[in-house]
């Protein structure tokens, strides 16, 4: 039996190769269907919009006092709003708040749901029972109505707060699913083996359990982003959230309730622009979710 001492670099380069292979695999998965590429492109577009969008425009969007609710034209592809501000500019600059909330919510929802689900599934026993009752409660409380009630108590002053509340309301589903996944993974030999080897719990959860659930969690994350965007835009639409100068939901609200977009076609572009943005975002995320399973599954990634 030959024992060759490997220099430490070997491990590092092995990891680098692994990473390279991973990205190559991702590329392969994406290339398999053109629709996935489109999805990634759309998501990237929104990401860029959220990050750089507001920088493209002056802090105070220009208004044209003589072009209130102007129809679509070359200079205003989606017309203007009640103040004569370009609707496209509103959609672009408004994306940051919307996406940021979406992201914050998704992170909180998924983190909380995963943590609760993992803990309950991993610990079992009374902690499990308690957490699951809590989850049941969370699921039994109707979210939207509660949000309506909460919005009168809580001032959602930042996207983060918004995300926190939406996240606190929405973790139940993920927790339950993660728990059942954890329970089934626990039965798999490799988790038991890790415990038998005396590996620390952090390792078992962080390195063995979580990666196995990664596609599931990532998918939920994306879905949570959309869910949060919808809940939030919806609440703005209902008018229960504090006014934000450029926000898709506020646009919907003003288009319908003060522009009469559902009554006359004049304000229709003002209504349709955010609706189309939401549709496009959904499409992008749906297409990316489609590829998620294959990206995280080494077997599917390689072939």
């Amino acid at each position: 039996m030959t024992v060759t001492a490997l220099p430490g670099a070997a491990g590092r380069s092995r990891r680098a190769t692994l990473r390279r292979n991973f990205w190559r695999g991702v590329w392969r998965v994406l290339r398999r269907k053109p629709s996935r590429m489109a999805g990634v492109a759309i998501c990237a577009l929104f990401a860029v919009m959220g990050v750089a969008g507001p920088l493209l425009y002056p802090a105070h969007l220009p208004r044209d006092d003589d072009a209130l609710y102007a129809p679509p034209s070359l200079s205003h592809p989606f017309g203007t709003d009640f103040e004569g501000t370009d609707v496209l500019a509103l959609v672009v600059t408004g994306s940051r708040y919307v996406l940021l909330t979406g992201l914050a919510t998704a992170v909180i929802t998924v983190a909380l749901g995963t943590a609760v689900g993992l803990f309950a599934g991993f610990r079992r026993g009374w902690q499990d029972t308690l957490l699951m009752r809590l989850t049941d409660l969370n699921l039994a409380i109707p979210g939207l109505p509660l949000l309506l009630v909460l919005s009168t108590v809580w001032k959602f002053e930042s996207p983060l707060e918004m995300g926190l509340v939406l996240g606190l309301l929405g973790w139940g589903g993920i927790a339950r699913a993660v728990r059942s996944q954890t329970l089934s993974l626990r039965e798999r030999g490799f988790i038991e083996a890790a415990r038998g080897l005396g590996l620390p719990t952090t390792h078992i959860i962080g390195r063995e359990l979580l990666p196995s659930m990664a596609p599931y969690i990532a998918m939920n994350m994306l879905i949570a982003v959309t869910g949060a965007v919808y809940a939030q835009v919806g609440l703005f639409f209902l008018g229960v959230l504090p006014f934000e100068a450029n926000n898709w939901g506020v646009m919907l609200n003003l288009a319908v309730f003060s522009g009469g977009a559902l009554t006359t076609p004049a304000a229709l572009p003002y209504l349709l622009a955010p609706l189309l943005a939401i549709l496009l975002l959904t499409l992008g995320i749906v297409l990316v979710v489609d590829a998620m399973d294959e990206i995280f599954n080494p077997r599917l990634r390689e072939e």
Partner: protein
Amino acid sequence: GGAAATDAGAEVDVYTTIDGTKQINASAPINPFNPVGSVFTGYNGMALAWARNHPTDPNRFYPALARSWTQSPDGAQVDIHLQPEARWSDGKPVTSEDVRVSIGLAYTQGGTAYALDPKAAGAAADVRVLDAKTIRVTQGANRSAAFLANLLSTVVVPAHVYGALLPRGFWDTLKVAQHDRGPAGERAKAVITGLADKVIAFSPEQDVSAGPFVLERVNPGAALLRRNPYFYNSRAIGPDKVKVLNYTGNEQIWNYLISGQLDNAPFTSVPAAVMERIRGARGSQVITGYSPVATSLAFNQSHKPYDNVHVRRALAYLIDREQVTRIAAPEGGTPAATTSGIHAKAARAWLGDGFAELEPYRLDPAKAAAELRAAGMKLRDGRWTMPDGSPWKVEIHVPASFSDWVSAAKSISSGLGDHGIDATVLTAADYSLYLSELAKGEYDLGFWLIGLGPSPYNIFQRLFGQANGWQMFGGRLTHVPPGTGGNWMGGPRTVEVAGEGLVDPGELTSRLNYVSPGEQRRIVGVLARIANEQLPAVQLWDYVNTQFVNTSRYTGFPPDDSEMLRLSSGVWMQLGMIRKRQP
């Protein structure tokens, strides 16, 4: 549905309208004492008389169940003469007893004319039936100029339906409640107010109306009324049926109007584009008239820097009211000519030439800058800061559910931004929340209704009343410090007025209740000047009573600026106006 409506309308004449004051609630009882009851003023709900829409005089009425009335010269006693032909929809005549029972029921509800507290200004002290068609009501010690108006607006219900609600000995109990100062009086008061719930919840099986219509059916979407053959002026009534459509938001009314479904819609705010479509609908007409309400942006003067009148003036100079109105209420409002606390039309009547002397606060950045400098504010890198150099951010609060206010606030903030003042719009989730936070003094600037005419007391009580610290307690005026008792405006208790010296505007306002017309005119002049100079609020726009009618089925609607415009089309019919269009 529009198509279905016209189908059904082929056989009978259905007049379609909406009730501007409440939403239809199919669960609510057919009971005018219930705030959402299925009783529609002017159709199946009748008062003694209908108030005219006069800019300055609250005591002008069209006769209704009261054919006429006489008031003693000192205003203490009113004799009411009922319509001799008036009958309920079950054929029984309308009598003085009906009026007395109605007044008795009104006592259980509380109110100005029928307050249990005998010291309340304008409370009725005695009710006496003179004969079957005549009744006399006497005012208590604290006289009020609004007594007649309040009395004549009394809603009349049939004694044979509602009479049982008043327990035996009710009138004796009332006397005790009004006059006994001891525990017996308190007990009697409790007995009477204790009836309130029962009265409100009272739900007659079917409608018994003395109006031109009687309720046939109500569902969550609409109420249907049919003609009351016993109505005293039945011949004047054109339509066979009236359909009152429900709505939850203005946009629904717009849809109804565009599709030509409504024969009349009372005051509704409408965006310009929608207005164009409505005007385009066949037979559609817009009537405008006086509406004694104005919107203002009010300051919380206990918050810095709004305690400084220069800052308030500077902001007034920077708000382009023309533009704001164009954006927020293009059809429903006219930009306020100045800030007087009074709707411009009433203001001209009250102030005459004095109106022109008020500072108009036209958009003027230069004056604004001067005022800001006078207030010690500093200009740094093109942005105004507080005197100590800390940033200044104007936070404009509005309730999220009022989209015209939201648009206005947004427009104001954009305009202020253009002139170097950082401004944001903050919304409250709903009106309840908005009002309670406003009352708690949490806002710097908030939207606030003012100029509620025609009674001058009502006008100025919005600026120098409870919201600004002056409260009426048992007929006595007190002043509470800012932040307590709903005093959120936080203005000073007294102000220097040129030519008047130090005055207490709240005290002046309360005096409007009972002084002579001449004195009223003088006080209004002073208060308008205070409002204009001290600027507790910046008047933004005066509402216009924009009504919509459709003349393709009915004609004879009131003209622009008619004194009838704030009354429902049911009243118009009573007055013999609405006629079926002849083919």
